[in-house]
């Protein structure tokens, strides 16, 4: 072990020397002189970072994910996860200005798949893949301690209320739609809506448009009573993490040994992510038969909903394609040719200055719209498919004897472990009393 220390020290020194040199590298162009009253626009993305430091970010992410998984699954330490999430908030949030981010990386990946001219950086790809891999094995430990967006909300959970299940499930469908739309818009090169409407990046950068700051503050205030609202109602990456987490073999467990069904864990979870034991009545033959009929009906509905969704998506392709600036601009210039003279219209003037012809713009817009025809089918079909599977899951009851975290919804924050009295105090000291519903 001692022999390894010089090697590690050497590596650290080498890294610092390498990154130090890169940090001293000059910009290609010196910054223009803007000291005479010109107001510089706020940057929408942070300054480019050297490759070595990008890989350092990946290394930090990997370390945080590993530590978070260990803390959640083996160490069972809520306090450790909390401190780790604070570190991530400071590092990935305030220090790295919320960029690079696994949530936004969805768009980079989508664009790189569908646009051969776009090359995704390895760091962005790893930021997308690593949390998913960890979710597949250990649950959503990324949400627990690595995501700065989750961390900032988690710290402000004050008096969470429990929302009725049907409302939660309905709201839980929004991230699916958001995911589908963000992939479609990114794949067609139209927009990066996840970044555009990232509510916390303005807070991380202490700067941003009014809307961004407004959304950030609103989410934080809302999060005092409805824990992690962005994660539960908007986060598109959470959809992917949730799906993979369902298959996780080493997911966090509430109790280290036998559950005593004290219900403390359920009351402690601000996210309504703990499922109670399945009662005997669901196993009764008549209920099972009824559920089987519904199950068959819902399974039959899946292809219908998929096709119907695809058809609706296809029919919406003209409307959806207008998100792409070229399509919108082409339509605008066809319907309002007089706008070409409008010097105040920045987009039209920028196009006219670009040297491209109007015919080129229209041709480009047609190509994009064709992409939306296919994209509309896929988006609609995807939403229909998820809707069908969600319906089907309503009648699938798995055998559950104890209180267990819902692997898809659980953020692995560890509150339930903290509250679980098993193996913490002698059994005889536990008073079994009923806890009122959470306000």
């Amino acid at each position, binding site marked *: 072990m001692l022999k390894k220390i010089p090697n590690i020290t050497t590596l650290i020194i080498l890294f610092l020397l390498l990154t130090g040199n890169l940090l001293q590298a000059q910009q290609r*162009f010196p910054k223009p002189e803007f000291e005479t009253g010109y107001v510089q*626009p706020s940057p929408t993305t942070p300054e480019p970072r050297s490759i070595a430091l990008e890989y350092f970010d990946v290394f930090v992410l990997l370390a945080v994910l590993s530590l978070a998984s260990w803390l959640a699954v083996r160490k069972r330490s809520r306090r450790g996860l909390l401190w780790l999430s604070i570190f991530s908030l400071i590092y990935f949030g305030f220090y790295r200005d919320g960029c690079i981010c696994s949530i936004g990386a969805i768009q980079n990946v989508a664009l790189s798949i569908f646009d051969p001219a776009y090359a995704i950086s390895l760091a962005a790809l790893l930021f997308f893949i690593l949390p998913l891999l960890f979710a597949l094995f250990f649950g959503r430990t990324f949400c627990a301690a690595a995501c700065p967006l989750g961390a900032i909300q988690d710290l402000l959970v004050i008096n969470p209320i429990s929302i009725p299940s049907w409302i939660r499930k309905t709201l839980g469908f929004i991230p699916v739609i958001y995911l589908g739309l963000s992939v479609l818009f990114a794949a067609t090169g139209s927009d990066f809506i996840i970044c555009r409407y990232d509510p916390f990046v303005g807070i991380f950068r202490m700067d941003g448009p009014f809307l961004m700051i407004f959304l950030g503050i609103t989410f934080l205030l809302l999060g005092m009573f409805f824990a992690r609202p962005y994660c539960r109602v908007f986060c598109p990456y959470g959809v992917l993490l949730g799906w993979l987490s369902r298959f996780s073999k080493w997911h966090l467990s509430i109790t280290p040994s036998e559950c005593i069904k004290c219900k403390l864990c359920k009351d402690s979870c601000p996210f309504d992510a703990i499922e109670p034991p399945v009662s005997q009545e669901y196993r009764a033959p008549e209920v099972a038969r009824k559920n089987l009929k519904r199950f068959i009906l819902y399974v039959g509905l899946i292809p219908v909903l998929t096709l119907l969704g695809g058809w609706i998506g296809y029919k919406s392709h003209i409307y959806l394609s207008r998100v792409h600036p070229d399509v919108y601009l082409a339509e605008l210039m066809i319907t309002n040719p007089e706008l070409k003279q409008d010097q105040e219209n*920045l987009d039209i003037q920028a196009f006219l200055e670009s040297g491209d012809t109007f015919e080129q713009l229209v041709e480009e817009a047609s190509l994009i719209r064709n992409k939306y025809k296919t994209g509309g089918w896929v988006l609609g079909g995807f939403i229909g498919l998820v809707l069908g599977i969600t319906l089907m899951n309503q009648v699938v009851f798995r055998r559950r004897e104890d209180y267990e975290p819902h692997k898809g919804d659980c953020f692995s924050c560890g509150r339930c472990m903290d509250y679980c009295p098993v193996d913490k105090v002698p059994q005889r000291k536990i008073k079994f009393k009923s806890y009122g519903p959470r306000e």
Partner: protein
Amino acid sequence: MKKRSLTIVVLVILAVIIGVILFDFLTKRPDRRGTNPYALEVDQYKVVDEALISHKETRNFSLGLLTASGIYYHNDSLFIVGESSLVVITKDGTSAGLFEILPHPTSLVVEDLYLYIGYKNFVAKYDHMGLLLGRWSDLGERAVITNLAIKEDRVYVADAGNRKVVIFDNEGVKIGEFEGKAESEAGHGFIVPSANFDLVVNSYGELWVVNPGKHALENYSDDGRIRGFWERASFEIDGFLGCCNPSRIAVMEDGSFITSEKGLVRIKIYDQSGKLISVVAPPDLFKEEGKAPDVCVDEQGVVYALDFDKDMVRIFEPKGDG
């Protein structure tokens, strides 16, 4: 607050958030956007103190069919190249010669016996009767020759495409090149964002090269060592602004520089140390967002500006005491 009420509040806030996002998404479109809050307003810098203006435009003459690309003053004559022509004009505007040359010249330099005309990636040598004496070696596909300068038997070629100065002897043999790089901060290397890269040799034989990205004039030895420089980056009249200024320069007998800028077009005079002496032509004499006029100057300090936007030669004479 009751749980039910809180739930309703939560749902209402969520609905507001979704509504705000949708509203923003649907309204931030090209025909619904507000004015650009970051527009670069340069109007205030177009106004120049009258006391600073040392010259006045006394004459100008159109070049007719010729789309000119370069002007040079030598021995009481103006040499202008453009399209596939070389035009020689006396100072009073009388034509003294018209010669056919290789097409698409970009620049020229003239000495007593020969003319050297720059093209995109090569230099051609002519005599004063317009006879082609030689076409020098090609500087490569990336080359964009923007200007030439001459000192005794050496011709300096500004290659904006490769961001370097190439030195030939007067027979076209390449004898050196440099990129303006040095260990010190001063020798950053030429930053040439566009095809605006000029150089001159003054009456003391010093080679001065514009580093347009740095808004600097740099003095080099023939082996590429930087010997001195000055830079002025500013919106104000005493500096240069934009990506690539000064775009064109000329040099007076006393070593002062005539500078010509694009964008906010203006022609000014600086001393050798970079101190603004006067303004030859303020921006309001030129097209808005125009090209930088090519400039040259005679022994009396008369500045000849080839205005590419108006396609004419404009003559600015010193105002004098009166």
